[in-house]
């Protein structure tokens, strides 16, 4: 009887999870998706708890209480810290999967080694390798994003790095196969696999730079999902398999989108150590870019009829999104059409820019995908680039020797005029010179994005007040 109730509620929960993701297709219905997800999770937890074999209520209560104590503050982080929080929660997901796999293995090893069939062992090995590598890999990613001092921000590479990484993974797989063949005899190899997975997670993230974080976070998302799937196989639980598969496919699709948006492959992101090679090449040729004052820029802006703003990670760093909203309001009041061009990899995680601009209350109809806005670019009077660099670099279209050649970009150079807001002429994170800054119709506005846009707003509000 209880078995039927549990299985039936699991089916309902699965359906609700699918609906939760389905409703994410549109910002209008998306909040329904959250309620659906919460309902599904509640059903899943309650139907697990009605099992009469559940006796350790104190332990459950304490763990859940701590979950709330840590979870609630984690949900209140500023939106610029969302990439770190996401990476951190992937780490928690991986840890949970790894621990459950470990516990299950030792439980069966002690109480019934006959349960450790080939299939179960394959699933347990997959669960702990994925789980622990996601755990340390995500912790490293979160550390890099949070810019913790002792974790190097720049990609760290050394000779034979890929060889060592793949070698470690191969050793773990060999140990895994031995364990699958005879879990009892080779039981002592189990902690070794855990250690290798933990180490592999760290080594995998060390060579990855900030510009590649969106792909890596998506990939870790996928791993966290897959480790839940493996847990489902271990525990013979279909709800775990379905929910994990939904998460796994989500991470996979996001990684594919991110890779496409950079014209790179998975292997290239994971083993390529982007942004290291080019740094030495920069600065061969000294050219000067034209400069403009905020006052002059404001005068040009008020004459425009179509303006496009291209935000990048620099906007997030400078916290300039609220100033941009003021700019957007003023320009709209002057009857100017203002749109935002969003590159899929702008920022440190998928959709990062959209969330920051939405936080500043910019209507989401104005946030336009790269592919949809590029054809309109020649009609645009002024493009304002705020803290974006590689995603507007025309070298991606023309310069075959450039490491970003072939990457789809926002065609800011095709607009009639371009203002680029930048602290200095230093090349960006990837260390690649940007042709856009030297183009005839490009003018630099040097300074902190927030301050420069503040100046623009000041000058424009005078104009608006006069009208």
């Amino acid at each position, binding site marked *: 009887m209880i078995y039927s109730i549990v299985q039936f509620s699991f089916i309902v929960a699965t359906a609700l999870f699918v609906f939760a993701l389905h409703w994410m297709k549109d910002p209008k219905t998306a909040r329904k998706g959250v309620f659906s997800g919460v309902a599904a999770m509640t059903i899943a937890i309650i139907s697990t708890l009605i099992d009469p074999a559940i006796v350790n209520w104190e332990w459950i209560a304490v763990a859940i209480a701590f979950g709330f104590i840590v979870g609630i503050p984690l949900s209140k982080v500023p939106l610029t810290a969302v990439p770190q929080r996401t990476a951190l929660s992937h780490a928690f997901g991986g840890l949970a999967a790894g621990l459950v796999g470990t516990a299950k293995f030792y439980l069966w090893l002690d109480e019934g080694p006959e349960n450790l069939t080939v299939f179960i062992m394959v699933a347990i090995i997959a669960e702990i390798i994925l789980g622990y590598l996601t755990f340390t890999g995500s912790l490293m990613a979160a550390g890099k994003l949070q810019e913790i001092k002792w974790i190097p921000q720049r990609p760290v590479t050394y000779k034979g790095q890929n060889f060592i990484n793949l070698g470690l993974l191969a050793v773990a797989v060999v140990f895994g196969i031995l364990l699958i063949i005879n879990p009892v005899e080779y039981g002592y190899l189990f902690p070794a696999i855990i250690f290798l997975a933990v180490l592999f997670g760290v080594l995998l993230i060390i060579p990855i730079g900030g510009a590649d974080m969106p792909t890596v976070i998506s990939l870790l998302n996928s791993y966290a*999902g897959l480790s839940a799937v493996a847990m489902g196989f271990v525990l013979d639980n279909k709800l775990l398999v379905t929910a994990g598969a939904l998460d796994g496919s989500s991470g996979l699709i996001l990684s594919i989108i991110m890779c496409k948006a950079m014209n790179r492959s998975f292997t290239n992101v994971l083993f390529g150590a982007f942004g290291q090679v080019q740094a030495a090449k920069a600065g061969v040729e000294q050219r000067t870019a034209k400069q403009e004052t905020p006052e002059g820029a404001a005068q040009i802006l008020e004459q425009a009829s179509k303006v496009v703003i291209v935000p990048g990670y620099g906007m997030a760093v400078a916290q300039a999104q609220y100033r941009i909203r003021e700019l957007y309001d003023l320009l709209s009041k002057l009857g100017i059409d203002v749109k935002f061009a969003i590159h899929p990899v702008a920022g440190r995680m998928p959709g990062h820019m959209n969330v920051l601009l939405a936080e500043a209350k910019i209507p989401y109809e104005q946030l336009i995908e790269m592919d949809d806005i590029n054809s309109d670019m020649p009609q645009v009077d002024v493009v304002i680039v705020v803290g974006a660099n590689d995603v507007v670099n025309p070298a991606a279209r023309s310069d075959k020797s450039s490491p970003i050649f072939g990457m789809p970009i926002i065609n800011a150079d095709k607009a009639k005029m371009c203002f680029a807001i930048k602290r200095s002429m230093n090349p960006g994170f990837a260390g690649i010179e940007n042709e856009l800054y030297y183009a005839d119709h490009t003018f630099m506005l040097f300074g902190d994005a927030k301050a420069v846009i503040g100046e623009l707003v000041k000058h424009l509000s005078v104009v608006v007040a006069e009208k």
Partner: protein
Amino acid sequence: MFSKTKILLLTTIIFLSVQSGILAQDETSASSTDFYSMLFVFMLATFIGIGVISRVSRLLHTPLMSITNAISAIAVVGSLILTGHDYPDYITILGAVALFASMTNIVSGFLITDRMLKMFQSRQGRALTDKTKSGKGESKKS
């Protein structure tokens, strides 16, 4: 939509055939759990996931990631089973830590998703909230 979906399809099929190859040698022990139906569920759920998620608005990719985060914390079910049953102490402790980790993900994942989604306002929506704010101000004056 994606050419790489085909690659995924291929890898899934390869994965499944490898798994079933392993299982073919293990027929006897496969009786306790119906692994084949599990693999079916996994495959179908992956395709449903791909179908549903490729339709998600690109505006919402950050909230999407945080909600799938919360959903994958379904590992809570496994952790509850381990923590709750009358197992040796070290199992209970491992389970409790896993339960804490998944619970943290559930709580923070759903809360932050909702918080972010509330911020996405359409032009109409924003006009409405601005109006109600200024409306309140005016009513106080009168």
